[in-house]
């Protein structure tokens, strides 16, 4: 390399170096691994991504529901306590103010997710994943969306055909 080209490359390095320095971010956050995020990483996605291991049936869910859910949502998901929502209702939404329960959801994963992250209301995140599968199965079977003996797990639950699937219209597609 000639002296001239060496100087040129040094000059370029200086310029590029300065540019890189300007583009640097403050870098104030700490790195963390997905493994360390696990206790908070509870979301499950409609296609089944992030569904945990485990399984449950309606029969296994019934006693858990009776003990931990019925006080608010009513026995067998009907006749809830005043101010609380029933979990069983026909998939009939012919009025703009029709009551929406589990039958309204487009995906069964929504039910599993909300039980797992938010319920029971006063003691959230105390159910095991097996219990969440079982209670989900029980509520789906009360709504006759699955059979009384169907097993819910990471493979079967995301594939449950919900009565309203395919009826939802994206309101503002250009915003996505």
């Amino acid at each position, binding site marked *: 390399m000639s002296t001239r080209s060496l100087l040129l490359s040094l000059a370029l390095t200086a310029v590029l170096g300065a540019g890189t320095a300007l583009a640097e971010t*403050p870098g104030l*956050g700490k790195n963390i691994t997905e493994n360390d995020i696990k206790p908070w990483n509870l979301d499950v996605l409609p296609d089944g991504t992030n569904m945990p291991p485990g399984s449950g049936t309606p029969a296994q869910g019934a006693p858990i529901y009776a003990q931990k859910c019925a006080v608010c949502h009513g026995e067998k998901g009907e006749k809830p306590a005043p101010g609380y929502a029933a979990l069983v209702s026909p998939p009939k939404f012919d009025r*703009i103010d029709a009551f929406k329960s589990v039958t*309204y959801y*487009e995906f069964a994963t929504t039910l599993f997710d909300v039980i797992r992250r938010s319920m029971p*209301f006063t003691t959230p995140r105390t159910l095991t994943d097996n219990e969440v599968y079982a209670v989900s199965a029980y509520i789906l079977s009360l709504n006759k969306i699955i059979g009384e003996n169907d097993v819910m797990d990471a493979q079967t639950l995301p594939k449950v055909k919900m009565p309203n699937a395919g009826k*939802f219209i994206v*309101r503002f597609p250009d915003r996505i």
Partner: protein
Amino acid sequence: MSTKERRPISHVPDVAGNGLLDRRALLGRGIMFAGATAAGAGASLTGAAAEPLKDDPWSLTMGAATPQRQEPSRFEKNVVRTLSNPNNEPRNSHARTPHHLLQGTVTPAALHFTINHSGLPDIDPEKHRLVIHGLVRQPKIFSLEDLSRYPMVTRMGFLECGGNSAPMFSNEPFQGTAQALHGLVSNSEWTGVLLSTLFEEVGLDPKAKWFLAEGADSLALHRSVPVKKGLDDAMIALYQNGERLMPGNGYPMRLLLPGYQGNMNVKFVRRIKLLDQPSMSFYEAKTYSQIIPGDRYWKFHFLQEVKSFITHPSFGHSLKGPGFYEISGVAYSGTGRITRVMVSADGGKSWGQAALQGPVYPQAFVRFRMPWRWDGQPVVLQSRAWDEAGNVQPTRSEFVAARGETQRPVASPLAFPNQHYNSITSWGIDSKGEIKHVYA
């Protein structure tokens, strides 16, 4: 100012039916209201004789001690939010902003509406963390102290619950104040770190099209948001009207998505996860996916569309006889700046353009004002707003034709028959000056 420019109020021209006056009367552009001295008592419309003056007790003694943190006067005790769950039963709690008792555009932080789904979490800011992970190059975790060192931005912004104004889905007008009808919207100055700044830190995978934001509340409430919005103007807000966020508004940090449905602006935000699909959380799958006529359902509504309502005068006030009044209210839109507000005093038959109190910010309240001379006859007051994206606030009949209404009257503002209501609001005033909510 020359005498020529001082025109008495009786000479201010009407611009629309039932006594709406030229808005320029308010802006001092050549038309002034006559004061009692300028044009004599005959031209003053509120010129009752005053009592002789005297000193009241508070003018004759030293006042109270100066507190560290000021509270409103004891005479303002009725300026409070209305509560849906004052005993904190295990369910959600709404608190509505008293718009009919406020002026200007900034909602005092203590009166900002809140909806808390499982009470107010008592978050230690030293221990709170925000983690960003998922489809990123390097997951990172931030403390409040970390975030406080980033470049910040300040902006005005309204926040509105998707269920605000929902009593107006009722087939008969629900009788309530602007607070009962529209109290789930408020407006603040927000300061925080742009989410795009933090996205640069973690490096987005090109497959990332959505992110979920999750709160540190007991429900771990979460919502899905397109990355497009995250890169546009989303903020991790740390300050509200210059001070740290109120607990009910997300202390110590919340997601702020200017112009988007309140529930998406996740409070107490502790986790943001980049995804290739929406998570279809409980709130987006159920509550905020609304039924529209014809067995169809909308999802991903996001936008709080253009809206305005008159706060003065409105239900809960009464007019004390004919004469001059200023009609005023707020207008806002999720799709930009308000460009025009028209006001009617004859139920929409004729309209006059209201003055907009600048500066007008995007996705924020603007206060509109309209001078009015009431002749004492029954009137119906309305306001209608336009925004810079070309959207116009619908009339109620236009709105109902598209979105429907209930078959039976709504009995309570807590009913939420449906979501995302934005039509014109009408206040009917009778000859006694009493005000009702009407459909016109």
